[in-house]
């Protein structure tokens, strides 16, 4: 694969095919761990590490994995990496480990990771698979940070733990509650879709203009020939 192809693929995982905001995968950790920005970053990075490593390993083993039991093999590989990440977090970021709780081991069944393994890593060479895992992981992390920023700002008046709106800000507790998670995620997805539709419309308009120009040029060329 060419360098520009890799760059395009990297962009795809973050923007065009963002796992959370476009593909709507991994809703459970997105809704549950975005109560604060630091939790979101921790969750996002843990998932990114697991995603990249499992993509690389599955891509390396793709010719040895029997088709019939591939899902089970993927899960075994993913859970191995999740256990490693979980132990590392427990050792070095104990507070974050406590905050993420059950959602850290639940990365095993995060459908983004399984989806990338099944749809991409099991069919492609190592380098593209690594890029794919990294970009999807970063896309996941960025989406979590966006949702968590809104929730933490409105629900607690803080960003990464720092007071933003001052002491007297009456925090809207609902944004820390599950209802606020759904509300925020819905609004963010709606905004992203609107932007995407606008960009698509512009793109097709540009293409239409280019086509018209090309047609006109062809017609002119024909006339000249005649």
């Amino acid at each position, binding site marked *: 694969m060419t360098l520009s192809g890799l760059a395009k693929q990297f962009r795809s995982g973050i923007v065009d095919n963002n796992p959370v905001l476009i593909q709507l995968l991994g809703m459970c950790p997105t809704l549950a761990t975005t109560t604060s920005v630091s939790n979101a970053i921790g969750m996002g990075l843990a998932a990114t590490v697991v995603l990249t490593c499992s993509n690389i390993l599955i891509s390396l083993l793709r010719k040895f994995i029997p088709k019939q039991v591939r899902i089970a093999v993927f899960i075994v590989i993913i859970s191995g990496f999740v256990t490693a990440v979980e132990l590392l977090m427990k050792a070095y970021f104990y507070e974050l480990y406590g905050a993420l709780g059950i959602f850290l081991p639940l990365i095993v069944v995060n459908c983004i990771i399984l989806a990338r393994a099944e749809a991409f890593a099991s069919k492609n060479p190592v380098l593209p698979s690594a890029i794919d895992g990294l970009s999807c992981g970063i896309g996941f992390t960025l989406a979590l940070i966006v949702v968590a920023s809104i929730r933490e700002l409105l629900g607690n008046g803080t960003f990464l733990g720092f007071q933003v709106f001052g002491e007297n800000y009456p925090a*809207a*507790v609902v944004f820390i509650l599950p209802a*606020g998670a759904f509300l925020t995620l819905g609004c963010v997805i709606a905004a992203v879709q609107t932007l995407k539709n606008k960009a698509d419309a512009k793109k097709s308009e540009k293409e239409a203009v280019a086509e018209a120009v090309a047609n006109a040029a062809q017609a002119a060329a024909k006339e000249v020939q005649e």
Partner: protein
Amino acid sequence: MNDIKKDNIVLAEAEAKVESKPEAKVESKSETKVEESEKITVPELLTVTSSPHLRHRDSTRTIMLEVIFALLPALLWGTYVFGLRALLVCIVCAGSCYIAEYVTQLILKRPITVSDCSALLTGLLLGMNLPATAPAWLAIVGSVFAIVIVKQLFGGLGHNVFNPALAARVFLTMAWPSYMTNFTAPFDRLLFSSADAVASATPLASLKHGALPDASLLDMFLGKIGGTIGEVSALFLLLGGVYLLIRKIITWQIPVAYIGTVALLTFLFPQIDGVARWEFMLYEVLAGGLILGAFFMATDYVTSPSTSWGRVIFGAGAGILVVFIRYFGGYPEGVSFSILVMNSLVWYIERITRPRVFGGAKKKHA
């Protein structure tokens, strides 16, 4: 009635005639332009206007204004009991809903429909669902949430799944519970500031704690109790509700099924020992926003079923939910939650109560 209808028909026919002439001319002009060689003129007698020919003066605007009119007695009572501040809260809500709708439609490049007064009604209902101590920013945030998120983002009037005023009330209750439950005692009238408000427990709160409220049943009925601005006076709410029923703005199924279910369940399963069943039942029915919700919010055209039996199911379901939430839930009041939950089931209720097509086959009962 018949005379009015006849008049309407005559009027409609007259209008149709007036309208038909210029249309015919335009049509004939355009056709002569297209086919200049053959001049075809459309005979005016053959011009047909499409139905409806029978018109009624009901429009979204008149219906909304009638509901607002029916709410006024309860609003005036709320102002009388809680002071001028109560009226101000409602005005702030209605005004910010109106502005929010205008601005959203401007930004989303939709047709501006603020003149249909649906935003004003939403604002008024929201205001009547707030305590008189509610700060202005709370009212404004609630209004913006109701109009922008619940109504316009779902597609505007006719497309919203949830009742905007109720959804905003629930949002505010979950976001700022302390502000939303800061009820003042009745006749402790507030002018502008809410600083000197005397906090009081609402009848619902005492019922939740397993004791009958201090207020007598007559006080409950008249509205000499604490609560949100619009929910306290059962008398004036019933007055407005009956007016809407007589004017055929709403139908009887939802309010009757709703209040009836609550009455039946609370009569069958009283929660306080040593109190007559009917007394406990009346307290439960008169306390909280049940009557306001049953007549004015559950009957919202957009978010309630359109079939008769659907409305009965809708009301009964909401009634069951209210009693369950009041008995077993975390919040003392369940009216807003119950209506919102039933709102989300309307599509299903309408599907199962869809009337048989005239002349169509009867359903087979297994």
